[in-house]
């Protein structure tokens, strides 16, 4: 049905000043007057301008006109539909007009903010308004699709953010799958000894949460597992999870650890111990691992490599070792998904002049965390690479790989605080002379600057300047056998060479190397730096542009533990809102086939990635399943018979908008 012909359009046009955001570059009054005058023939009954259309007064202006002037179509020329489309649709609904009869066109993001010539921006704005007016004539009243929400939720990533998310939802009484790719949950936090700014012991505050998550009746923990396939959409996703073979039967294993003890094969642990310590070929990453079941690392296991050994199997008192075990795939149905996949650290080998990997006593921050951890490879002793010598002097370099256009141009947020934490720990445990090299000291947030003051008062030397080089080439007396930190001290205004025994590089935070693949798997997007993109940077930080998929913790950008926890809880609250509502509304943008016009050519049949299109052999016509259609419109564009229409983006709407946009040049 052609809406424009069914009722004669009575259109109201509302042009927003957005304070001065629009008005400084677009002559709003001129646009208004032009629309009222020129677009009369298109059905424009009234055109108004207002300082802030999105304010309640602005909305009331529209509502009053709908009631008093009998408007049946609305065009608001203001900001991007991604910001306020919902606002204006809701305003129309309140006045009894279907929200889908309202078009929001952007003269702010797409005109006033990007142009510098006021006359040209004003002309362009008129055309944008004309496009909206032409288009709105073909808008049809629509009802949002109501989709039922499956009560189960999937959380991907069992770091502190994911654990918090899973617990919040589980505690509210709803089932959660928590998928973690490593053998234990815990994430980076499990590697730390102390946490800034309070210096709580990381394990003491994390372990209870891990145990809660492991034992919670509403949490199905799937460790050593990864998501391989995601289908469906908000309310009903089908997710395939691959449980990698542990080679340990969970039902039989009691977690006694005898297998690990008896395993003859030592392997350098580059994950949990950050390369500083060893584990066995059958192992749990750390003593408090959740779950307690070990895994066999088949790449290093003597039996898998050489075909004999089986020490673990021989000694296991419950017969839990199973060398034949295979990967298992399961498909689960969930209503919402939360990604909490965290970060990785910057590889300092990319800055060769810092000597990491070449100079033995240059360490990374993660290595230092393990070294300072009482349960770590050195039993908490801060020592040089030889494993015994206590350093007399230690340099801590901030911002390694961060705030540098050659590597990552952003600030990694936590490194200043983490470097101060290290300074405190080194002082406390070794009494060594400590030098922190920083560009700017960034200690925002509660309790952070106080911690900085405390570390200052402990006698740590703070040198402002970016380290140029770390070398073992002694030039001056006193430099022999030392690492020399070459830096321009920008406060003292001179070059300095500071000899030390040990250097710790505070490496920055980066998106995981597979973050992009994971984003693609779940259909969300990444920022230019590779962090997951939130729906709105300020107002919707845990939602994504894909309905039903949320993000929490450091996968969204560098952040500390308190913020990761807060985001985890926030994402959980959003999901619980969905679950409790029982159903959610979705944009009713769907394609449908007019069977009478379908010629049965089947051109469209292979185009749908969601398998929404099927062909009825008996009637020789195509049908689209609205529950599967996601509304991309590809089939609509392809049908040579014009038999497929797409709601919200019909041919008539787009064609009319093009006409409007070219109002001034139409030939």
């Amino acid at each position, binding site marked *: 049905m052609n809406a424009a012909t069914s009722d004669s359009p009575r259109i109201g046009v509302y042009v927003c000043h957005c304070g001065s955001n629009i008005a400084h570059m677009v002559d709003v009054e001129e646009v208004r007057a032009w629309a009222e005058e020129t677009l009369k023939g298109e059905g424009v009954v009234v055109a108004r301008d207002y300082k802030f259309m999105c304010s309640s007064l602005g909305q009331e202006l529209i509502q009053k006109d709908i009631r008093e002037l009998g408007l049946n179509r609305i065009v608001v020329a203001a900001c991007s539909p991604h910001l306020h489309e919902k606002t204006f649709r809701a305003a129309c609904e309140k006045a009894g007009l279907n929200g889908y009869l309202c078009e929001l066109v952007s003269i702010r*993001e797409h005109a006033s903010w*990007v142009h510098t010539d006021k006359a040209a921006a004003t002309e*362009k704005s008129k055309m944008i308004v004309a496009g909206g007016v032409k288009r709105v004539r073909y808008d049809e009243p629509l009802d949002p699709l109501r989709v039922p929400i499956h009560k189960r939720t999937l959380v991907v990533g069992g770091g502190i953010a994911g654990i918090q998310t899973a617990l919040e939802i589980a505690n509210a009484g709803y089932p959660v799958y928590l998928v973690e790719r490593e053998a234990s949950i815990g994430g980076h936090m499990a590697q730390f000894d102390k946490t800034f700014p309070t210096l709580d012991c990381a394990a003491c505050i994390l372990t209870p949460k891990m145990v809660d998550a492991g034992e919670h009746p509403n949490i199905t923990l799937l460790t050593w597992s990864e998501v391989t396939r995601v289908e469906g959409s908000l309310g009903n996703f089908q997710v395939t999870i691959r449980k990698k073979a542990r080679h340990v039967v969970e039902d039989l294993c009691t977690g006694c650890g005898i297998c690990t003890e008896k395993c003859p094969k030592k392997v350098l642990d580059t994950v949990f111990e950050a390369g500083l310590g060893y584990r066995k070929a059958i192992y749990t990453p750390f003593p408090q691992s959740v779950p307690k079941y070990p895994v066999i690392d088949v790449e290093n296991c003597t039996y898998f490599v050489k075909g004999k050994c089986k020490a673990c199997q021989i000694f296991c008192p419950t017969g839990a070792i199973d060398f034949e075990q295979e990967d298992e795939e399961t498909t689960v149905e969930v209503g919402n998904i939360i990604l909490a996949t965290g970060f990785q650290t910057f590889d300092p080998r990319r800055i060769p002049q810092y000597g990491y990997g070449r100079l033995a006593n240059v360490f990374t921050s993660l290595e230092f965390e393990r070294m300072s951890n009482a349960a770590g490879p050195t039993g908490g002793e801060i020592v040089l690479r030889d494993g015994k010598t206590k350093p007399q002097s230690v340099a801590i370099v901030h911002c390694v790989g961060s705030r540098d256009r050659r590597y990552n141009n952003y600030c990694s947020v936590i490194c200043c605080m983490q470097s101060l934490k290290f300074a405190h720990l080194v002082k406390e445990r070794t009494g060594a002379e400590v030098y922190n090299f920083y560009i700017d000291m960034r200690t925002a947030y509660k309790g952070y600057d106080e911690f900085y003051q405390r570390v200052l008062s402990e006698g740590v030397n703070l040198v402002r300047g970016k380290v140029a080089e770390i070398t073992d080439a002694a030039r001056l007396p006193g430099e022999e056998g030392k690492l020399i930190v070459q830096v321009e001290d920008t406060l003292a205004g001179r070059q300095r060479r500071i000899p030390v025994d040990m250097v710790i590089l505070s490496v920055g935070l980066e998106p995981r190397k597979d973050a992009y693949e994971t984003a*693609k798997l779940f259909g969300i997007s990444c920022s*230019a730096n590779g962090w997951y993109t939130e729906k709105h940077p300020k107002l919707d930080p845990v939602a994504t542009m894909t309905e039903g998929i949320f993000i929490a913790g450091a996968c969204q950008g560098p952040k500390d533990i308190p913020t990761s926890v807060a985001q985890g809880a926030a994402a959980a609250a959003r999901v619980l809102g969905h679950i409790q509502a029982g159903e959610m509304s979705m944009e009713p943008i769907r394609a449908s086939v007019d069977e009478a016009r379908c010629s049965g050519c089947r051109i469209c049949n292979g185009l749908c*990635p969601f398998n929404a299109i099927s062909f009825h052999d008996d009637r020789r016509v195509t049908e689209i399943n609205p529950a599967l259609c996601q509304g*991309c*419109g590809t089939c609509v564009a392809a049908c040579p018979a014009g038999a497929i229409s797409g709601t919200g983006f019909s041919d008539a709407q787009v064609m009319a908008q*093009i006409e409007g*946009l070219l109002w001034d040049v139409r030939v």
Partner: protein
Amino acid sequence: MNKTFEPVLIGFTCNWCSYRAADLAGTSRTKYPPNIRLVRLMCSGRLDPTFVLKALAEGADGVLITGCHPGECHYLEQNYKALRRYHLLRRTLQSLGIEPERVKLVWASASEGLQLAEAIREFTEEIRTLGPLRWNAQAELRSEEVPLEAVP
């Protein structure tokens, strides 16, 4: 050629990436020439080639088609379909006597506001160099029954 020629361009954008890139160009106050007017589609796959012909027929001098990078389409792979149609469309245009360069396809993700602005700037200059699309003039030429060899 007329130095003051200001091309009029239509840009088709995808709701998930390039339209958001345009929004981002706005919020970050990145500047580009005002010649382009944007239409939002849900996906570059929605781009019916007749939309492009319509824009050219209605007076646009060039059409910029934008979508998510290959592999990043919100609907998985529909931008590949757009890519195929694009090549077909350029050939069709050529056979109609329109320079295929008047239609251009660029990929821009939601975070590439700067890149999109740059692409718009570039395209504006390209069409400026190409000059106005004189579709009607050519049609008139033909209707006047000029000898074939006189048709450019």
